[in-house]
Structure formats: structure tokens, C-alpha cells
């Protein structure tokens, strides 16, 4: 019963929402709006679960003195101090909370993503070393698109920005569209599996 009742709720709600999509009656719409308020009231507690999970992982590392446990202390200090700053002094511009965002969180996340520029360059080198016709096409398309984004491309020849636009608007669009159709079919199949009770991994 610990699994059957939750499963029955998902299946019942799932079919009600299928009906809601096809029958936009007032009763159906009211039910949907009411359900939305419930979901919004449940959602903040899911974030609390995430915070507790992070806290438990690092607390265990500290209590067991695993290698590099000292860094877990840094994570917990960062977590609690930032949250405390937000609750204590507010989240407006000029508060310690926003100082932490501007001078700690934002520079680090931007740098973390910019690191990928180096690793992507090394991946490109490896792809080029594959020396197959397909890898060459991929790299040529990438180089044209990259040059098309900067003024250097237009300085070399006016064909580069035009070819870049064509690549993005024609073959790239075809690839994205086909992948989108595949993703859509996959989403539909997965949703159906959940709806029919075949997929139950979310129950844990």
C-alpha cells in the first residue's frame, strides 16, 4: 500500500490532466488552477530537501574526517553565511547578500564556465585528429560559425558571415528540428510510461 496509493494518485491526476488538455471546460480549468496553487505551496519544501541533502553530505564528510573534509566546512560556511545574509539584511542592491553575489558567486561561476573554453579547444583538437570526413565537416562548420560571430570573419571575406548565417539557418535548423522531434517522441513515451504505471523509479 505504501507504493500503490501514491501510484494511484499519479495515474488518476495524470489522466485528469490529459482530459484537461483536450476538454478546456471551466470545471477542468478551475481544477487545474487549484492544483497549481497546491504545487506552488509544495515546491519550497523541495528546496529545503535539497539544502538538507547538501548539509547531510558535508556533515558526514566532516564527522568521518574523510580526505579533504576541510573543504566541506567551507561549503557549509558559504551556504549558511549567504542564506543568513539574505534573511538578516535583505536581498536588495547594496546589502551583504548582493555583495556576495557580485563578488563571490558571479565571478566564480563565470570563470568556471570560461574554463570550458580551454577544454573545448582541446576537444576540438582531438576531433580534428580523428581525420574522418564527418569530423572534418563538423570542424569546418564550427570554424565558419566562430569566424562569422566576430569582425575578423567579415574582414577575411564577406562570405564567411553569410555562410555562417546559412549554416545556422538551414542545415543546423534541420538537425535541431529532427532532434527536437526525437526528444518530443521520447518525452511522450516517458510520460505515457509514468501515466500507465510502467515507470515507477520516481517512487524511490
Amino acid at each position, binding site marked *: 500500500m505504501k507504493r500503490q496509493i501514491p501510484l494511484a494518485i499519479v495515474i488518476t491526476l495524470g489522466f485528469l490532466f490529459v482530459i484537461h488538455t483536450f476538454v478546456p471546460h471551466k470545471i477542468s480549468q478551475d481544477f487545474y488552477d487549484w492544483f497549481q496553487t497546491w504545487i506552488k505551496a509544495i515546491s519550497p519544501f523541495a528546496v529545503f530537501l535539497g539544502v538538507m541533502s547538501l548539509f547531510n553530505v558535508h556533515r558526514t564528510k566532516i564527522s568521518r574526517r574523510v580526505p579533504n573534509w576541510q573543504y566541506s566546512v567551507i561549503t557549509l560556511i558559504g551556504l549558511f553565511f549567504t542564506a543568513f545574509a539574505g534573511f538578516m539584511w535583505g536581498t536588495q542592491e547594496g546589502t551583504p547578500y548582493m555583495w556576495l553575489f557580485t563578488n563571490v558567486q558571479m565571478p566564480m561561476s563565470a570563470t568556471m564556465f570560461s574554463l570550458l573554453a580551454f577544454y573545448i579547444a582541446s576537444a576540438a583538437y582531438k576531433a580534428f585528429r580523428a581525420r574522418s570526413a564527418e569530423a572534418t565537416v563538423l570542424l569546418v562548420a564550427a570554424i565558419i560559425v566562430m569566424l562569422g560571430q566576430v569582425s575578423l570573419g567579415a574582414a577575411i571575406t564577406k562570405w564567411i558571415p553569410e555562410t555562417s548565417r546559412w549554416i545556422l539557418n538551414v542545415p543546423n535548423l534541420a538537425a535541431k528540428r529532427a532532434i527536437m522531434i526525437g526528444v*518530443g517522441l521520447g518525452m511522450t513515451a516517458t510520460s505515457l510510461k509514468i501515466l500507465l504505471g510502467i515507470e515507477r523509479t520516481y517512487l524511490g
Partner: protein
Amino acid sequence: MYETISNFVAAFLTLSIFSFLYKDNPFYKFAEHLLVGVSMGYAIPVLYENVFIPYVYIPIFLNHDFIIIIPSLLGVLYILRFSKNLSWLARYPITFTMGIVGMGVPLSLHTSVLVQMRSAMLPLDNINTILIFIGTVTILLYFYFSKAHRGIYGKVTNMGIWFMMIGFGASFGYTVMARISLLIGRIQFLLGDWLGLIK
């Protein structure tokens, strides 16, 4: 003075992350762990103000809409996930969130499949739209594995691979440029805002 200290902190953390390019080291580990903590800590007050206050606190305590206590209690059940004996109760808030998946069936079929198919087919009035159509169909055929990719069918699916390679190349190029622009931003910060070498 305030700006100098702020820039120094940001520069120290930026250089700590860049130090990973040499190898994994204590400065990088420090910055990485701090980023995880600060990011999560940043999200808590934002969610409190934007979700908890308008959808839980105001309806219950100001509008006296006491029915909202039920979903709030359901939300509290999430925390029982950490209990050995009562963790099964955490399934209830999950089931309410998963219930919405019913809308996913017709909506994903409509937006991701039917609309995309219609856009691929209409109007076929110039070489580019014809190429887009051929590209979409050949890529879809490539992912159809119930028929061996041999003979004429193999040649058609091979054309799909070429379209995909151009698409991946374009995405790759676009991603590289986005990362490079972030890198330029960080270098501008270090050389301009922090060291004052560029104006």
C-alpha cells in the same frame, strides 16, 4: 577602499578557479566548494521571497486560505526522506508533482513533434526550405534502427549524418564563442577593474 577589497576578493577567487588549468590544487578546491555553498545559500532567500512568501505565507496567514495548509504539510513530508522508517511518506509530495505529467503527453506531442513537422514541410518554396526538409527526414531515418542501414537506405541515412555533423559543428562553434566571451570578460576584469592595466 570598499571597491578595492571587493575587486581583490573577486580576483582571488577568479585566479583560484583558473589555477585548475595547471592542475587540481587547494586553491581550486577551496573556490569550488565555496561556489557550491554560496550558490545554494543564494537560492534560499530568493526562493523564500519569491515562492514561500507569496504561495504559502500570504495565503495562510494574511488571506486566511487555510486549505493551503494541506499542501504545505504535504511539502513537509519531503523531509521524511531522511527517516529510515517514514521515508515512504515522502512519496506523497512527489506524486502530486508527478501528476502534472499527464499534460506532458499531448503537449510534448504537439509542440515538439506536430508543430516541428508542420514547420519542416510548409512552405517548400525555395532551395533552403527543401534542404531543411531533406535534412530533417534523413536525420529521422538515421535514428530508425529497425531497418539495416545498407544500400540506398544507407546512403540516405548517411546524408542525415552529414546534416547532423554540420548542426553539431554550428552548436560547437556557438558554444566556443560563448565561452570565449566569458573568458574575455574575466580577463577584462582582471586586467581592467583589478589591476587597472586596461581602460
